[in-house]
């Protein structure tokens, strides 16, 4: 079975006055049709940039995709013309952003904004688009859709706006949905509702999902496979059950230990990871996690570990993996 999306050695750098920021530094992963992949890591580790790179939405200047390929349905998105990519955006690959408060245009009605993708990619006329928008709003659980589509974004709460964004993203039945921290900006009760909606609709449409998050609880519940990113690289990837249950990279272990779990005694202390993530302009010579790692070996300081398979699915980039 060939993968729906195959990212190989993707490198996205930002050229600033202070130096070159290696936001994404050679990552590779793949995604099967209908599969959900969780992209996990702390702020600034390159999760969002790697997702924006897929659709070539990196602001240039200062950003540039310097190397790699992104094969989607057998074609390299990075080598397409601007017009071809435009035909894919919103149509075959859609995106949901982190901030529902700012990702809708305040002076246009939500009906117009959802209808935009329909007009662009499905050539519906005004009336057809309107009926379709009502249907979409119904699907994401917005009450009274035939009235609410003439409302402006400010008349919706954060959770409702994110539902609008989901409706917009799924309007053209995309093959791939990139959800960039879709629940970070809304409160906990709404988070669960939104994730359920995304899960239900994408599984009904057979849409594959890349779920970017720093919430490990979300990962455990909603993704098939996960990839853990650190300083622009993937340090561990594999089926969510394996990575979550038996993490093999010191960073993944640290991440999981720093999150409270319901199945552990309440008195148990959380263990933070010491230190700060590295400066992406002046990266350490060897393993990027070396300065903070409690399992480090001598060679970690000058040699950078490759992502190597432990079994057919579980990959980890660590020299000390056997001792972990």
């Amino acid at each position, binding site marked *: 079975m060939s993968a729906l999306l195959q990212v190989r050695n993707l490198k996205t750098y930002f050229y600033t006055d202070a130096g070159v920021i290696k936001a994404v530094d050679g990552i590779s992963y793949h995604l099967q049709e209908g599969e959900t992949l969780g992209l996990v890591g702390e702020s600034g580790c390159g999760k969002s940039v790697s997702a924006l790179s897929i659709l070539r939405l990196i602001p240039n200047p200062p950003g540039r995709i310097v190397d790699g390929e992104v094969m989607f349905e057998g074609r390299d998105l990075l080598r397409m013309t601007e017009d071809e990519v435009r035909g894919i955006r919103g149509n075959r690959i859609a995106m949901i952003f982190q901030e529902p408060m700012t990702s809708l245009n305040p002076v246009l009605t939500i009906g117009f904004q959802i209808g935009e993708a329909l007009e662009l990619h499905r050539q519906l006329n005004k009336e057809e688009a*309107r*009926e379709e928008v009502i249907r979409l709003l119904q699907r994401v659980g917005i009450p009274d859709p035939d009235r609410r589509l003439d409302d402006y974004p400010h008349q919706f709460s954060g959770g409702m706006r994110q539902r609008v964004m989901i409706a917009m993203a799924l309007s053209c039945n995309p093959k791939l949905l990139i959800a960039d921290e879709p629940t970070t900006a809304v409160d906990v009760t709404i988070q669960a509702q939104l994730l359920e909606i995304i899960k239900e609709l994408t599984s009904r449409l057979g849409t594959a999902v890349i779920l970017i998050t720093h919430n490990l609880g979300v990962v455990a519940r909603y993704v098939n496979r996960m990839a853990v990113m650190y300083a622009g690289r993937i340090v561990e990837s594999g089926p969510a059950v394996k990575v979550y249950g038996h993490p093999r990279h010191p960073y993944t272990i640290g991440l999981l230990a720093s999150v409270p779990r319901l199945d552990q005694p309440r008195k148990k202390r959380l263990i933070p990871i010491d230190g700060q993530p590295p400066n992406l302009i002046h990266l350490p010579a060897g393993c990027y996690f070396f300065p903070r790692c409690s399992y480090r070996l001598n060679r970690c300081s000058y040699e950078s570990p490759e992502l190597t398979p432990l079994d057919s699915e579980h990959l980890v980039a660590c020299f000390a993996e056997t001792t972990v």
Partner: protein
Amino acid sequence: MMKENVTKAYSNERGRVREVFRRLFKRVTALIGLIIVLIFFVSALLAPLLSPHDPLEHSLAHKLANPSWEYPLGRDELGRCILSRIIYGARISLLIGVIVISIGVLVGVPFGVVSAYYGGKVDFVIQRFVDTMLAFPGILLALMLIAMLGVGLHNVMIAVGISTIPVYARLARSSVLAIKARQYVEAARSIGSSHSRIIIKHLVPNSLSPIIVQSTLHMATAILWAAGLGFLGLGVNPPTPEWGAMLNGGRLYIRVASHVATFPGLMIFITVLGFNLLGDGLRDALDPRLKT
């Protein structure tokens, strides 16, 4: 049921326009501004019907006559009806305002939007050009252009219009710069919108309210400038009634017959105030975020 919704959509379209007016009417100052502006427009359009006398008919026997029932605002230095001349003068002022703003907005805004959206070299070239134009005081630039083009109403309008272009280019650029970094622009790109679609549907409408406000305020400035140039004798040729020229004509008699200069000056003041109040009110009414 679906058919009903569709027809409702079109009535909602009209409903939005009505909504803007409703909010405009709720503010007393905006309403006053609107009334002044409407009176101004009506008197400009219906001047022949509204004016009690021929604005050009003179009578030296009655020069500088005080206001009376027949001549409510009195007569000027050539015995012409001041009220009629003011009503006819509104035509010139309206024409100047509309042409000047049109030149400024239609040329300035596209340059500003393109400059901000594409950035880089395009932005650099356009902005250095704008800087050069802004370096001159507006009235000086207009005077210079009149010196090149020659005296006359058309040239005054073109000159003042050109000198407002950099203002609109800057204004449009700055509001687009603020907007283009917003996530909804990125979201629009992520659904496959083209550059031109993003500019027309997302950037221009969101940057429009400062431009609308600026243009109503500019309407006031343009009338003032035209009056100023008329005062200097660079605008319309006598005997065409024009507020600035009338002010200039009455200047000599300010001690003996103050009404000759006072009424045209008052008209300029009230009209400018009206446009300012309307501009302010429009800014609030057009912003859907302030909707209550």
